[in-house]
C-alpha cells in the first residue's frame, strides 16, 4: 500500500519536475517567443506521436521492432502529395470547406494505401521472422531500402515542394503572439488521434484483446482468438498512423523527399525509448518532451538541437531503463 502511494507520488513529482524544466527556457527567451516556440514544439510533438505510437504498439503486441516504419512514413507523405497534385484546384481554393475536404481525402488515401502496404509487408516479409529480433531488424531494414527505392522509381529521386491548403497557411496574431494556423491543426489532429486510440483500446472488444495481447500473447491465443489476424491488423493500423504522420509532416516542413523517413524514424525511436516501448500514453509524453525540447534548444543553441534529444534519452535510460511508462498502459 505504502509502496503504491509512493509510486503514485513519484510519478506526480516527476511530472511537476518536468513542468518546471519546460518553464526554464523562459529565463533566456522572451515570453512571446516562448509561446510561439511552445506551440511549434507541441505541433512537432503531436506529429512525432503519430509515428512513434505505431512503432510502440507494434512492438508491444507483436514484439517486432519495425525499422521500415520510416519508409511507410515517407510513403504516406508521397501518397498525400499525389492527392494534393490531383486536386490542386481545391488546395488553392479560398474556402475552408474545400481545403478541409482535400486534406481529409489525402489523409484517408494515405492511410488506406499505406495500410495495405503494411498488410503486404507483414504477410510477406515480417511474418517469417517472428520471435527473432535480429532477423526482424535486418529484414525490416531491407524492406526500408526497397520501399524507399520504389518511391524513387514512382515519384522520381528529387525533392518536391508541397503546398499548404490556402486557408491553413498564415498566422493568427493573438495579443502579439504569432501562432501558425497549421500548427494548431497538427496539435488538434494529434489530440484526436490519441483520443481515438485510447477509446478503441479501452472501450472496445478489439482494444481489450490488443491490450491483453501486449500483456500475454500466449494466453490470448489460448482463449481462442486468432492472434495472427490481430497482428496483421495492428501492423496495418500502425502503418496507417505512420502515413498520417508523414502526410502532416510533409505539409509542416513544406517538402517531400525519398529519404525523409530516416530522420523521423530516429525521432520516433528516441520517443519510444523515453516513453517506454509498448505504451501509447508513453509515446505521447515522450513525443511532447522531444518536440518541445528540440524547439527550445534549436532557438537558443542551434547546433545542439540534434544532441539534446539523445541526451534526454540517455538520462532516461540511466534512471528508468524501461522508459517512463509501462507497456500496455
Amino acid at each position, binding site marked *: 500500500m505504502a509502496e503504491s502511494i509512493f509510486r503514485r507520488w513519484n510519478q506526480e513529482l516527476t511530472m511537476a519536475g518536468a513542468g518546471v524544466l519546460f518553464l526554464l527556457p523562459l529565463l533566456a527567451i522572451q515570453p512571446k517567443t516562448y509561446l510561439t516556440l511552445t506551440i511549434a514544439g507541441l505541433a512537432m510533438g503531436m506529429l512525432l506521436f503519430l509515428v512513434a505510437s505505431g512503432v510502440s504498439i507494434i512492438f508491444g503486441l507483436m514484439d517486432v521492432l519495425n525499422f521500415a516504419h520510416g519508409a511507410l512514413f515517407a510513403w504516406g507523405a508521397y501518397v498525400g502529395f499525389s492527392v494534393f497534385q490531383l486536386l490542386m484546384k481545391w488546395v488553392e481554393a479560398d474556402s475552408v470547406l474545400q481545403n478541409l475536404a482535400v486534406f481529409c481525402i489525402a489523409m484517408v488515401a494515405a492511410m488506406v494505401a499505406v495500410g495495405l502496404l503494411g498488410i503486404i509487408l507483414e504477410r510477406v516479409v515480417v511474418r517469417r521472422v517472428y520471435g527473432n529480433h535480429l532477423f526482424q*531488424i535486418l*529484414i525490416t531494414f531491407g524492406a526500408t531500402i526497397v520501399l524507399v527505392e520504389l518511391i524513387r522509381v514512382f515519384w522520381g529521386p528529387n525533392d518536391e515542394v508541397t503546398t499548404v491548403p490556402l486557408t491553413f497557411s498564415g498566422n493568427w496574431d493573438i495579443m502579439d503572439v504569432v501562432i501558425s494556423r497549421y500548427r494548431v491543426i497538427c496539435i488538434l489532429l494529434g489530440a484526436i488521434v490519441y483520443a481515438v486510440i485510447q477509446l478503441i483500446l479501452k472501450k472496445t472488444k478489439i482494444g481489450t484483446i490488443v491490450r491483453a495481447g501486449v500483456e500475454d500473447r500466449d494466453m490470448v491465443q489460448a482463449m481462442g482468438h486468432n492472434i495472427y489476424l490481430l497482428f496483421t491488423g495492428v501492423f496495418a493500423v500502425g502503418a496507417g498512423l505512420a502515413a498520417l504522420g508523414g502526410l502532416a509532416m510533409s505539409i509542416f516542413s513544406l517538402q517531400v523527399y525519398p529519404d525523409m523517413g530516416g530522420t523521423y524514424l530516429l525521432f520516433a525511436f*528516441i520517443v519510444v525509448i523515453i516513453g517506454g516501448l509498448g505504451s501509447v500514453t508513453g509515446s505521447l509524453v515522450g513525443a511532447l518532451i522531444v518536440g518541445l525540447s528540440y524547439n527550445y534548444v534549436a532557438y537558443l543553441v542551434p547546433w545542439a538541437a540534434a544532441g539534446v534529444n539523445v541526451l534526454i534519452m*540517455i538520462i532516461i*535510460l540511466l534512471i528508468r531503463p524501461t522508459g517512463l511508462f509501462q507497456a500496455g498502459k
Partner: protein
Amino acid sequence: MSGPTPVQIFHMEEKRKQYRSGSFFLKISLLALFLLVPFLFPSFKTVDLAMQIIIFGALVASFDILLGYTGILSFGHGMFFGLGAYCMAFLIGKYGMPSYSNLILGFVVAATASAVLALLISLLTLRVKAIFFSMITLAIAELAIVLTTKLSGLTGGEDGISFSTPGIFSVSYSMGEFMGIEITGKIITYYFILLSCLALFVAMLRFTHSPLGRILQAIRDNAQRAEALGNKTFVYQSISITFGCVVAALIGALYAMWMEYVNPESSLGVMTIMLDVLLMVIIGGMGTLYGGIIGAAFLKITQTFLPDLQSLAKHLFPQSELLHNILERWLLLFGILFILVVIFFPKGVIGSLQEYRIRKKKI
C-alpha cells in the same frame, strides 16, 4: 586413465589435416592474389578495388564479431569506422603534421576513443535489452553525422579534410623500379594496409576461437542458459562490442591513410557505409568472419562495374525503358536480394557451404 580423450583425438586429427585441406590452400592463394595485385594489374582502378575489398572485408569481419558472434546488431559501426578515419585525419592533417609519430599516435587515439565510446554505449544499453543497442547506435550515429557536418570549423564540415601521408607512404615517394613497376608510396601504403588488415583479421580469428569467443557464441544462442551456467553475459558482451568497435576504428584509420581524405558521407554515413557492410555480412554469411571477404568482393566488384553494365544494357536493349530504370535503381535490386538472402539463406554463402560440407561428411 592414460591416453588421449576422444576430444583430444579429434583436435589432433584436425591439426594434422590443417595444412592439407582445400580451404587452407584457398586462403593462401587468396592472400597471394592480393599480394600480387599491384604487379599483375598495375592500373590504379584495380589496385583501388583490391584495397577496398581488403579494407571492407576486414571491416565486415569486425562487424561480424558483433552480429554473428555476439548476436547484437549495431548501426554505429560506420560511426566507429569514421571515428578512426577522423582521428587519423586530425592528427596527420588538420591539427598535426605528416610524421611517423603522429601516424602511430593516430592509431592509438583512434583505438582509445572508440573503446571509451563503445564501452559507454554498451553500459547504457545492454542492461535493458539487446535491441536497444540497435536503436541507440542508430540515433548516436546520426547525431555524429549531424555534429560533424554542423561543426564545420572543427571538422571541416561537408567538405571534409584532405591531407597527405608521411614519409615512405606519401604519393610523391618513389623507391625505384621492381619487376618493371615503379614502387611508389601508394604501393607501399597498399602493402602496409594489407598486412595490417591481415594482422587484425588474425587477431579477430584468435578472439573468436578463444574460450571467450565460445562463451560469446553460447550467449548468442541461449542467453539464459549461458547466464545460468555462471557466465556474466553483460561483461562478455561489453568486451566483445568494445573489441569489435576498436578494430573498426583501426580499419577506419587505415582507410583514411589510403584515401588521404575524409568527409561525413564517405566515412561516417549510416546509409552509405552501414548499408554496404550489412549487405556484405548477409551475403557472405553471419558468424563466419571469412564471409566478409566474399561479401565485400561481390559488392565492391558489382559497384565498380555497374556503370559498364548499365551502358552495356543500353547498348544491347536500346528499347527497353524498364530495364534502364531498374539498372538506374540498382539499390532496389540489392534490397530485394538482401531480403531474399535473409529469408532463404540466412547463413550466407560461406555458412551454406559449411553446412553443405558437414551434411556431406555425415552421409
